[in-house]
């Protein structure tokens, strides 16, 4: 009997002693196990880039979400019947308010990317490894941070500046107040100036990383937007003459061809690759998800007015049929299908129409043609078009018409314009050149022509001057109505 008791107690004691309440997760990385080696630093910066093209469960920033603000909120793009989100439709009709979820998601995605950059910038210096690589990685993170703040300041005006990762979950330490527009730009210029120290090129395996040329290109746009024309001109010339080897593709279609990604015209592109989001979808898909197949069903993303934006291309302008498709061969049936209305085509991979959401076509965030036109614009704004300005504009036009780029060609070249008509010519050129490239709304706001241009589209006649900025998301303002005053017209 004693034996039984003994066994009994032993078995109980056996279990009492054997477990600890502190368990260590084995299937995910906790922060304190991170930032030890250079590989950790590399991975953290990869995540900074990924904030541009991947947001599981949502359309990513440059995948499609920013498009709603920068394109659908402008004149040429609209929500088609297949757009079932009322918030998207509101954006298209310019009736969106501070509760609009697309505005909120864009705000979230931009600040999530900024936080990832902050995490990298705060922590990379402490990992082991080559100082050169570490500096480069930090500058890459600064490039993305500057780029994201540049989007934010144009969309919302003076936004909160957050430069470090949060250290506590208390609300007070997570809140930030709006800064002034000038403060934000100062920060952008600081980050991008640091990023000018990036390498001019990378090995093929690292193609797609931010370069010093990319930093200068974004800075060109920053100065142009600020109407700081001397600096804009200076930076653009550094891009052009800095030995980076940038040039226009001879063929406009090449810009959107997956085999030509990260080519000579691409200064910085958001990279898309099949299966980026796992199982058969890329991180995002830009408007290609909107492809509804060879049916009469109107896609979610459509051209708002065929006469105003499709019929404007002159005969021989190759940009029309790269940007839009009126007819397309159905690869399954081999027959030519005519759509009721031209559909957007730049990001449609014709070799992969079955899963258009799994595309390998990059998003050209800034390309050489933009720098040429920006420089031309800056020069013209300083007084009058110069010969240099004409040449810049005409190079873009010659390429569009399939002509030799550097050979003057009277059939397409523009000449004899004054400042006003040259300005109009540039504006017309950008409208045709940058369909679906996230430029249109920024351009119209920069030129001060948003209301007059958008009003030309009947379904968008709700537009008003308040639309030169987007509203600060209401959910964000609820935390701090005083520190985050609303933009005019949205209260």
């Amino acid at each position: 009997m004693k034996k039984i008791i003994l066994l009994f107690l032993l078995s109980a004691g056996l279990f009492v002693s054997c477990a600890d309440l502190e368990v260590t997760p084995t299937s995910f990385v906790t922060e304190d196990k991170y930032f030890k080696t250079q590989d950790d630093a590399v991975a953290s910066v990869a995540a900074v880039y990924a904030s541009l093209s991947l947001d599981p469960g949502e359309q990513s920033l440059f995948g499609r979400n920013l498009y709603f603000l920068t394109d659908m909120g402008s004149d040429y793009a609209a929500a088609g019947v297949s757009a079932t989100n009322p918030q998207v439709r509101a954006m298209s009709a310019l009736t969106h308010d501070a509760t609009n979820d697309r505005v909120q998601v864009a705000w979230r995605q931009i600040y999530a990317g900024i936080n990832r950059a902050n995490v990298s910038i705060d922590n990379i210096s402490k990992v082991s490894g080559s100082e050169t690589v570490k500096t480069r990685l930090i500058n890459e993170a600064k490039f993305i941070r500057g780029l994201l703040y540049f989007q934010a300041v144009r969309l919302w005006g003076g936004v909160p500046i957050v430069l470090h990762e949060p250290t506590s979950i208390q609300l007070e330490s997570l809140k930030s107040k709006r800064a002034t527009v000038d403060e934000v730009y100062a920060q952008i210029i600081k980050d991008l100036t640091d990023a000018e120290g990036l390498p001019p090129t990378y090995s093929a395996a690292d193609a797609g990383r931010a370069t010093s040329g990319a930093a200068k290109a974004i800075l060109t746009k920053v100065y142009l937007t600020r109407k700081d024309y001397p600096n804009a001109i200076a930076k653009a010339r550094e891009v052009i003459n800095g030995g980076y080897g940038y040039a226009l593709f001879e063929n406009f279609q090449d810009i959107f061809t997956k085999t030509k990604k990260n080519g000579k015209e691409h200064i910085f592109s958001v990279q898309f690759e099949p299966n980026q989001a796992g199982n058969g979808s890329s991180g995002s898909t830009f408007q290609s998800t909107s492809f509804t197949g060879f049916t009469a069903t109107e896609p979610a993303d459509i051209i708002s007015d065929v006469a105003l934006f499709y019929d404007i291309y002159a005969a021989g302008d190759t940009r029309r049929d790269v940007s839009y498709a009126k007819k397309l061969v159905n690869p399954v049936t081999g027959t030519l299908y005519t759509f009721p209305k031209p559909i957007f085509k730049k990001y449609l991979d014709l070799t992969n129409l079955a899963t258009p959401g799994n595309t390998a076509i990059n998003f050209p965030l800034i390309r050489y043609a933009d720098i040429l036109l920006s420089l031309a614009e800056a020069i013209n704004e300083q007084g009058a078009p110069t010969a240099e300005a004409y040449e810049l504009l005409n190079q873009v036009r010659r390429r569009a018409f399939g002509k030799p780029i550097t050979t003057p060609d009277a059939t397409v070249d523009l000449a004899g314009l004054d400042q006003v008509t040259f300005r109009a010519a540039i504006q017309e050129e950008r409208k045709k050149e940058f369909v679906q490239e996230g430029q249109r709304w920024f351009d119209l706001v920069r030129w001060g022509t948003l209301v007059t241009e958008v009003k030309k589209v009947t379904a968008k006649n709700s537009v008003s001057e308040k639309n030169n900025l987007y509203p600060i998301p209401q959910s964000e303002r609820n935390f701090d109505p005083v520190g985050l005053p609303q933009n005019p017209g949205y209260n």
Partner: protein
Amino acid sequence: MLFLLLSYAGINAQNTTPLIQSKLDGTLVDDITNQPVIGASITIKGTTHGVVTDAEGKFYFQTGQKLPYTLIVSYIGYKKLEIIVDKNPVTISLKEERQELDELVVVGYGTQKRKDITGSVASVPKANLSQVTSSADNLLRGAVAGVVVTQSSGRPGASSSVRIRGGNSITAGNEPLYVVDGILIYNDNNNGSAGVSFAGASINVLSTINPADIESIEVLKDASATAIYGSRGSNGVVIITTKKGTKGHDNISYQGYFGFQDVSKKLHLMNAAQWASLRNDVQASIGQTPSFTAAQIEDFRNSGGYDWQSAAFRSSAPVQNHQLSFSGGDERSRYAVSAGYFDQEGTVLGSDFKRISLRINYEKNYSTNFKFGVNANYSNSIANGVGSNGNGGRTPNPIVSAVLTAPVVPIRNTDGTYNVTNNIYATSVNGFVPNPINDLENTINETKISRILTSLFGEYKITKKLTAKVAVSGDVINTKQNYYAPANTTNGAGTKGLASIGDRLVSSVLNENTLNYNTTFGENHKFSVLGGYTLQYTQGETVNAGANTFVNDSNTYNAIQDGVAVKPYSDAFESVLKSWLARVNYSYRGKYNFTLSGRADGSSRFGSESLWGYFPSAGFSWNITDEEFANNIKGVTEAKLRLTAGTTGNQEIGNYLSLASMGSVNYSFGGTLYTGLAPTRLANPDLKWEKTTQYNAGLDLSLLDRKVNFVFDVYYKKTNDLLISVPVPLTSGYATVLQNIGGVENKGIEVGLTTENLKTEHFSWNSNIVFSANRNKVVSIGNGVDQFFPVVPNGSLLQQQPVTVKVGLPLGTFWGYKTNGIFQTQEEVNTQPKINSLANTKVGDRKYVDTNGDGVITALDKGNLGTSQPKFVASFSNTISYRDFDLNFSFQGSYGAKIFNALNQQLEISTLGTNANVTLEDRWTPTNPSNEIPRASSSPLGIVSERYVEDASFVRLKLVTLGYTLPKSVSKRLGATSVKFYVSAENLVTWTKYTGYDPEVSSYEQNNLYPGIDFGSYPNSRTFISGLNVTF
């Protein structure tokens, strides 16, 4: 067996009778029914001479005692009787025992006399336990006041959500703790899924326990009863005890049934002619030329078109169950062994559920002080189910796809094969168009669950008063999922076949060590003390892998190496829970009872700053009828008042959530994907359990010699420290942080009433009425936020935001517009408020109410449209027996709940390509100025309005069973002790205004945040079965 006993008794009697003084022929009968009482023991007082009554209730004494003498008659279920016998022969009537307050009730870590209990503990009536169901949790349906069981769908093996006294939690688990033969189980449906994409709703892991093995179910509801389970007690506790052997009655029994099921309701959809004319109108509305000619429509009217909905259903789907069990025991050991087989085909094509279960319960008295035993259960179930659609959006699953497919599209080709190429209304992918019937029939979607649930225990009586018990138990769940969508199915077309396999293994070891001390001081003071230490360790691993782009479909999921791999997935977790528990019961003369109980839980799930939680409770009960003043209150047999208060917790908050984590994201450089790691969660070292404080007052009344028993409870529960993903400023880089910050309140009343309506010689009628009303309210959700919209994981619902969590309103509140008729004139369109996001409202479109009066319909005009939580639920069950027949029938009802009928919303949206509800026949046209149904237009926008938030109140004749038991004499001739035949019908009639398949539905299963959404769930079925129970 009985004969052996009888003859044994007879021999005994003769041997011990040296001198015969008297003979006695007696008959023992029930005092009301006059039926013989069989197997009762009768002894002559003051002697050891005893006999047992035979199959006719007869007994016989030959004894040295002279008449008159006193007989002691006892039999289980009857009051013990001492009677003086002075004549021969004699007929003795025995009164049935209805001493309800004296019955033993299973409570946490022990049993207690019902009379001594202070807490709110309810037992599931025996009649409920014999229902036909695949899963144990369904036995709770309508059985106990305060328990609401909602089956997520009618799919065989479907999961259900169980709420005891309302939901306490917003984001953490709300399911009760199950204790199966002492093993603590949280019914986490995640364990029924290995995470395979498109597999659809997971299988109910409680279905691994064979309902036929269950002896009793107790539900612990208030804090006094559940505090002994500490951080797992908040949501209530369900104690399941399986059948054990009993001394002296070795028997073999077979229980079996066979039946058929049919979908209980179909939706009224348009036929081909109706749809063709609708489509013509839609085309006209967008300026297209109508594509159907009048002649074509006439042809459709004659042919009827194609009924896709009906094609998705199987008629007379069979269900069968067989159970063989052996049980018995002798002086020192008891055993029960059983094997069961359950096989159910679903009413939707391609779905079924099979289960094999084996159980052995054994207990041995090793010595007078030491006993040990084992309760072991193994089950293996295989379920084939309806998966989900990868394209999501308007068609979450093939059932919805079938309902929405245009009725002019042929289901099959002329050669009998499924039509997967010819549907101009659908988008063709790689040459294939979706055919939901083909999807249902040919997609493999299999879940296999094996579970071993075993406990070993030893109990040692150290002294007469002190007992030690050690139990070690293990629970292993292995779930394997296999999925294959062939290249011509919806999910497989885009990738030329899609295979996915997954495996999840979760095992848990539990050790419980308790000491029990019982003592009395004098006559009046009775103490019992329980103390213990327990440890539970759980670990789990999941892996899944898949591939696509197969050469052909022949190897399905069995050769994924032949395809192109998709990213594999694996994860693992472990958790540890250590606990100290204690309970003290004190009773003064049985009149005043006090219970103090509590538990300290240390959990690995909690943050480093709050590893241990403490959960105390106190209870008091007063047996009023034991007081002298109450002795003579007419009609009142027993009255008891209960008062309790206490704190319990909820630790179902997930693993590792207190730690900061990094998640992987990809980005490509040079055309190659690289893995990046990004911060996904901020650390919260203060993360801890959710805390519920509960007060309960109850009254138990037995009236009219216990013919009427009444249990009444009123309670108030306040849950604090709710774990919520609190929204934070997005500028922080995070959208939410997990914090213990919210509060929810539940209060309610419960009434249970059991009555014996009639009892005569051949006839009896008993009823059981259960009623409960719970009011749930969100008290706070933190950070000054008073409302948020949970993200419903489905494209079109996500954008509509049909459900909200708002302070002051119940969980599961629907949020949307109120409709206001139809725009009848252009004048109205020009002057009245329109939805701001719809650019071109026209005559014939729906009007909405501009609640804030700003002249435009925006999100600000949305409001509360009701909640999915019922105002009250009730059930009414009856058992009627007449001679050898018995009839059971039960009604269940629910009042005041709403369901968001998302499927009907989709069906009332006219498009160019999808079928519609027949209600659209009454659509607005210039000649039919309907004020209810808008014009035909091509606008797939779903808008949440009160039209689609429907009243889900219902009354249902849930179950009718008619049984016939063969007379003893007949069954004896067949060599059996009892033979019973029965027929039964389930879901025979439902009275409801709900227009969907069934008002008891929740497309998102156990989810707390968006319950009560019906997005085309698997329909419920009506079942007819016939069965046979034989005991040898």
